[in-house]
């Protein structure tokens, strides 16, 4: 490792060469000029996107100038091409937006295209100053008796990164095919997609380990080390990871499920390695809840066997109304609300005799658990209108205030006063 770092440090000495300095300056100046010109809009009627072309023209002139005097120009040309490549990624972004939505385009660009460009540019730049082949075999140290060199490590990191980043779309595609073929629900599709991703990542890690030359003994040693680590430092992380996997297989917490969390229905958006991302309709909040919460604590779900929810609104009617009439009216009113399911039929109940009213409960079924609040509101409003139409009074508690006289012997009743 030390040798590799010394090697990298040694590249600085190329700055001793005037030809290198001149090329660097001639690569930097056009870029800086074009940026400055764009910021100040030096050329009227030029859109901001056109200013990089100014830099490209200046870079071309610089390269031609160097070539015409027989000076080395490879470095300027290379840096110019890097800049052109980076600029082309901006243009590619716009092209991609024609075919892909914003989010996948952003992910493709930030997770794959730009990192790949930077890695490729770095390799090309290093090959200008050194031999990639011998840098790749520079030893970095030993891991479980296996000699690790820079090339092996680089390959392993690239494979792991590509597996982590690149397994998403194929896994989603396979899950989509499985959904079409087997008639799975959306939640099952998402669960299958996640399981496929974990499987691919797992296989990728094993391939990397084999590629590095780690033998089974070394893997057992890794497992032993991990178990110690799990016991001390990363117990929670591992617990959350295993909980997440278990929940996926169990199918109780899958993307698309609706759970009741602190009294609010929330939709599961993503089941991650450590935490589950929930979306709360009430305030559009996204909640990150550690996976083990669902594993160890009781959870209310509205979507385990079906997606229907039974809702309830409470209302009071005056004592002089016939409860049978009120119950029939409540049930008919619920049926008149479009988002209330006709089957199972709404059910009204006389709950109890209250202080100022007979209390009723109207229970009805809805298709989407997340719509509970808005449908309940609609039903409550419909009841108000129905009661008004049928002259059914919704009583409210009334209180009479009077002043006390001290001592109590002197107190007179209201009748006495009047």
């Amino acid at each position, binding site marked *: 490792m030390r040798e590799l770092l010394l090697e990298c440090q040694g590249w600085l000495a190329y700055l001793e060469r005037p030809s290198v300095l001149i*090329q660097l300056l001639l690569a930097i100046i056009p870029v800086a000029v074009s940026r400055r010109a764009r910021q100040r809009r030096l050329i009227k009627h030029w859109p901001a996107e056109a200013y990089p072309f100014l830099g490209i023209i200046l870079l071309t002139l610089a390269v031609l100038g160097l070539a015409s005097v027989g000076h080395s120009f490879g470095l300027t040309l290379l840096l110019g091409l890097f800049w052109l490549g980076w600029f082309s990624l901006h243009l590619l972004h716009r092209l991609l937006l024609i075919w892909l939505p914003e989010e996948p385009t952003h992910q493709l660009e930030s997770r794959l295209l730009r990192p790949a460009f930077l890695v490729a540019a770095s390799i090309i730049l290093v090959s200008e100053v050194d031999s990639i082949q011998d840098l790749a075999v520079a030893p970095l140290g030993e891991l479980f008796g296996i000699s690790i060199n820079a090339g092996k490590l680089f390959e392993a990191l690239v494979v792991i990164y590509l597996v982590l980043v690149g397994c998403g779309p194929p896994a989603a595609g396979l899950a989509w095919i499985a959904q079409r073929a087997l008639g799975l629900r959306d939640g099952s599709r998402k669960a299958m997609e996640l399981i496929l991703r974990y499987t691919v990542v797992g296989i990728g890690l094993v391939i990397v380990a084999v590629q590095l030359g780690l033998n089974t003994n070394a893997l057992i040693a890794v497992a032993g080390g991990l178990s110690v680590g799990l016991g001390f430092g990363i117990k929670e992380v591992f617990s959350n990871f295993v909980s997440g996997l278990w929940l996926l297989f169990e199918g109780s917490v899958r993307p698309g499920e609706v759970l009741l969390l602190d009294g609010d229905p929330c939709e599961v958006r993503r089941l991650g390695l450590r935490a589950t991302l929930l979306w709360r309709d009430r305030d559009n909040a996204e909640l990150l809840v550690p996976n083990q919460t669902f594993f160890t604590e009781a959870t209310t779900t509205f979507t385990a066997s079906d997606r229907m929810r039974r809702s309830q609104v409470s209302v009071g009617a005056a004592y002089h109304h016939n409860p049978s009439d009120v119950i029939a009216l409540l049930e008919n009113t619920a049926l008149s609300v479009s988002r209330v399911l006709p089957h199972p039929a709404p059910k009204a109940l006389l709950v109890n005799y209250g202080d100022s009213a007979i209390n009723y409960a109207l229970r009805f079924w809805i298709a989407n658990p997340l719509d509970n609040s808005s449908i309940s509101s609609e039903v409550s409003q419909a009841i108000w209108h129905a009661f008004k139409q049928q002259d059914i009074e919704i009583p409210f508690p009334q209180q009479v205030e009077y002043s006390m006289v001290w001592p109590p012997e002197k107190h007179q009743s209201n009748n006495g006063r009047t």
Partner: protein
Amino acid sequence: MTPLKGSRFRPTRQHALVLGLLTGLSLTGCSSWNLPNVLYLSLSTNSDQTIDATLLQDYREKLSILNGGYRQIHPSTYFQFSLYPEERIIQAMQRRTGAGLGPDVLFVNGETAKRLVAQRLADPFPINAALAQQLNPEDLQRMRITNGALAGLPILIQTQVACFNRKHLSQAPTTLQALLSASAKGHRIGLSIELTSLFWSAGSMGAVDAVQQLESGQTVKPDAKNSLTNWLSWLQNANHQQRVTFYANQSAALNEFRAGHLDWIPCSSVSLPSLRKTLGESLGVASLPSGPGGMASPINRLRVFALGRSSSQAGRERALAFSRFAVNPLVQHNLTVGAQTVLPANRFVKVPTQSSGTLKALSASKSSGQRSAAVSDLLHQDDPRIISAQSIISSLVFGEVSPNKAANDLIHLFQKER
């Protein structure tokens, strides 16, 4: 610091970055006091060598004899070396020199140095009389280019010898007849169909003059053609032996020998360190077998220092000082005796052949290789004629064409290409 009111200039991070970079570059340009004195050294490896951690370590160890000694005199100088396969070094140097990032010194085969100078990728070596006087006039003559300039400074000579496994073969065969007899007795012999690895047998069969005539474009005389056919017949006959195996390349033969599957192979002296590490005391080194045509004609490589064209003035001075240091008799003696894989270019260094069988074999090989020097100077590894000639030899060895037909094909090839 806040900008003045009304000033149009607003310092930003980008400005600070550009300013810092420009200042840094100008400072390093004006004075290199803060940059390390690095001597960039690029080395070519032979076609039978694979660039891996072992080879890297091997080169580090060998170069440490040179570097360590030089740093005792110039402690502020650091070395950075890069390894390239012989067939790819020209391409790499084109790229690096074009960017002004080429090495200060190239440690390459003599013929490669000539090609580097011819392609303006290296400068002729400015040798003075005192330095020239220390070197063999024949070696210097081999390194002269058309205008009389020196393409590179001879440093070492790598030779081709016979490597055998003492556990299985007590003594190396000294003649071609003895070699085939050994195979008949059950000893496993390995040969490569690479022309440069196989050419030693042309000398033993008296075909060197014929090949020289071929290469130089002269009309091949009937006697020469006969000797050429005899050599090719021997090759075909050798492959008919049960325990003589021809390999596609020298590195394959080396690997088999290293693994203990072969008892005798021709090998380059630079392969000796890795063979010693594997075989230890079992490794025997001897001269290549002679034959009815005389001594073997191994292709010995003259390793030279060529001067890169991208050096700064200080870098060039370091390169010249290091080159002069490398041909110092004491350093040359240490290089020869220390590694026992190369012979010195300095003619005043006596090789202790009495005390070392390996050095004796290397010296003998050097002497007998004088005959093939002209051939090796004319042919380089990526010469298209070499590839075609190897194809013809391959067809011959595996019995697809007769020796006579192969001889005619070779004559036709060299006359056509000319």
